[in-house]
């Protein structure tokens, strides 16, 4: 089928200048193949890699666009005229976003996720994350340089010193990184590539990433005075928020400690107390109020603490501590603050802390004197290193019998809270192996050295746990030497 093909000016270089050629073919598709055989390069001008007619070329068979006929399969007959019509277009208008993206994809080299992982593994490229702060905090590639796009041009120079270094830019999906890469190239960085698919694809392919813990807005406001202390800062505050402190007793020592630990933002506060509020408590137990006399101390404590800091998780245990429940109660907490008022409890607390390896912040008061120390199993002595057995009852009067200056447990309880916070933050020297004594009347603080007893039945190295002892209150002897383990 002899067909006349009209060649437009731009394509005449391929036909040696001819504006018309005669071709025999049964269909348009066949005609293109024949043209290619005769004039090499023709097909590439008309069709893309998949053999489809290019967008900017039109084929008119006898004045009708073949797209409205059978496309490339349109049949031909003798005498037909096939005109190759270039799409003529342009305009002053700035490129559409779509066109910009197309151009960027052509100009900016892309690199796939596995290759970025390999480059990173060998330290051969700097990874730059251009996402915003929220996205970055939700998770990012460890070691990536964070340069949000909003500040890219301003901060690039201080973050990326070597303009010849190999840089891989990534965003969430691979689009913003193209724009950012172009910006970096404009700034003179010569080896910049964009990670195809972005961080989403990194995660989809199961590659590792890190997610920093950060404070929310409310927390930033509430703990502002902590955040500016270098030893605390955001990381320290996060440690406090993540910590779990158990207070034995919501009384004279437990009250001030609980209040300040809640104020500091300790995330979980446990309170063990089976007693109810008594009027005589109000001389010193600041967790409680006059209108709560007769109420369980745990409930009263919860009310006060949540009013101060609604963000604290207050867990109450309105039970008497014994060998039967001590491990169950202690298990979830990071450290114990002993504010108990009787020896059986002190020994139980000590023994459980030794067994479960938890720091035990210890405080005690008597009239005008008080003491604080930290029993940290294996770091220093335990209670039994000092007092392997409880004292005879006549040497251990309770507060009711001996009396106490109301404010004194306030002082000691707060010192206990300070020690707890130091342990949580990992800052300063906790009173491990040292006993801080306070003489209120003399206004004197002293420190005594305490040592581990190498023969301590409970905490010596390699000791097999002897078991809990449920001492009867103020009995000289235990009812059973060995109870639970």
């Amino acid at each position: 089928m002899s067909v006349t093909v009209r060649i437009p000016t731009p394509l005449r270089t391929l036909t040696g200048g001819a504006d018309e050629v005669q071709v025999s073919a049964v269909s348009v598709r066949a005609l293109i193949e024949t043209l290619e055989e005769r004039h090499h390069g023709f097909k590439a001008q008309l069709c893309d890699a998949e053999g489809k007619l290019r967008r900017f070329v039109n084929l008119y068979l006898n004045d009708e666009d073949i797209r409205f006929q059978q496309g490339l399969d349109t049949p031909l007959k003798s005498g037909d005229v096939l005109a190759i019509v270039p799409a003529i277009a342009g305009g002053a208008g700035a490129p559409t976003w779509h066109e910009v993206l197309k151009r960027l994809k052509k100009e900016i080299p892309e690199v796939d996720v596995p290759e970025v992982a390999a480059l990173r593994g060998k330290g051969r490229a700097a990874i730059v994350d251009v996402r915003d702060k929220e996205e970055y905090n939700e998770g990012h590639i460890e070691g990536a340089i964070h340069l949000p796009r909003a500040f890219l041009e301003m901060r690039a120079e201080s973050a990326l010193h070597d303009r010849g270094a190999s840089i891989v830019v990534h965003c969430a999906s691979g689009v913003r990184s193209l724009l950012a890469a172009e910006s970096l190239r404009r700034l003179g960085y010569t080896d910049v590539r964009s990670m195809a698919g972005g961080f989403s694809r990194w995660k989809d392919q199961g590659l590792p990433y890190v997610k920093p813990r950060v404070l929310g807005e409310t927390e930033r406001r509430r703990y502002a005075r902590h955040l500016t202390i270098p030893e605390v800062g955001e990381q320290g505050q996060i440690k406090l928020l993540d910590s779990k402190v158990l207070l034995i007793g919501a009384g004279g020592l437990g009250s001030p400690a609980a209040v300040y630990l809640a104020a500091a933002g300790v995330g979980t506060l446990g309170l063990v107390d089976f007693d109810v509020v008594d009027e005589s408590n109000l001389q010193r137990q600041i967790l409680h109020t006059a209108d709560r006399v007769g109420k369980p101390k745990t409930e009263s404590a919860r009310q006060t603490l949540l009013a101060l800091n609604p963000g604290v998780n207050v867990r109450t245990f309105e039970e008497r501590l014994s060998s039967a429940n001590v491990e169950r109660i202690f298990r979830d907490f990071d450290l114990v603050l002993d504010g108990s008022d009787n020896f059986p409890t002190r020994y139980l607390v000590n023994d459980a802390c030794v067994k479960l390896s938890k720091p035990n912040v210890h405080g005690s008061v008597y009239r005008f004197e008080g003491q604080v120390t930290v029993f940290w199993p294996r770091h220093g002595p335990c209670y039994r290193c000092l007092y392997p057995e409880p004292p005879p009852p006549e040497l251990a009067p309770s507060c009711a019998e001996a009396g106490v200056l109301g404010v004194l447990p306030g002082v000691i309880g707060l010192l206990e809270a300070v020690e707890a916070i130091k342990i949580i933050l990992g800052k300063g020297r906790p009173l491990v192996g040292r006993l801080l004594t306070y003489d209120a009347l003399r206004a004197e603080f002293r420190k005594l050295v305490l040592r581990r007893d190498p023969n301590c039945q409970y905490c010596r190295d390699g000791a097999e746990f002897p078991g809990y002892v449920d001492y009867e209150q103020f009995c000289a002897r235990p009812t059973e030497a060995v109870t639970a383990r």
Partner: protein
Amino acid sequence: MPAGEAEVAAHGGATLRLAEEAVAVIRAHAERDYPHECCGVMVGRRYAGAWEVEYARPARNLITERARDRYLLDPHDFVNADREARGRGLDIVGVYHSHPDHPARASETDRENAWPALAYLIVNVQGGRARDWRAWEYDGEGFQERTVAGAPGNSL
């Protein structure tokens, strides 16, 4: 600047020579379609050092939503103009279009859609008046400016 045949600046490559009739048609078309871009074909002969345009045929701009700064020349009009040119022993040697309120410089968009060998005439229509006429030729990478002869002086 003297009126009539004012060769504005001498550029390398071929010169685009416009017959008076072509100039009149192009100017009328550009000013009529303002503030939209107009487009059309230029018909004549190609010589070694020049495109000689005898007449111009306006074509339809298929772009409607962005006609202020985009054009797409209706292929039908191209086909018809091509047939007519052939009948007269002539050829479509180039394309013209206007830039309303925008310099007569080839843009990124022009470049992305460009074909070699054709003469591209861009007419700047400022505030409704055709003011600046410039010619361009695409060399495979970008546009090179060419001399325009026969167009009104650009200072008008």
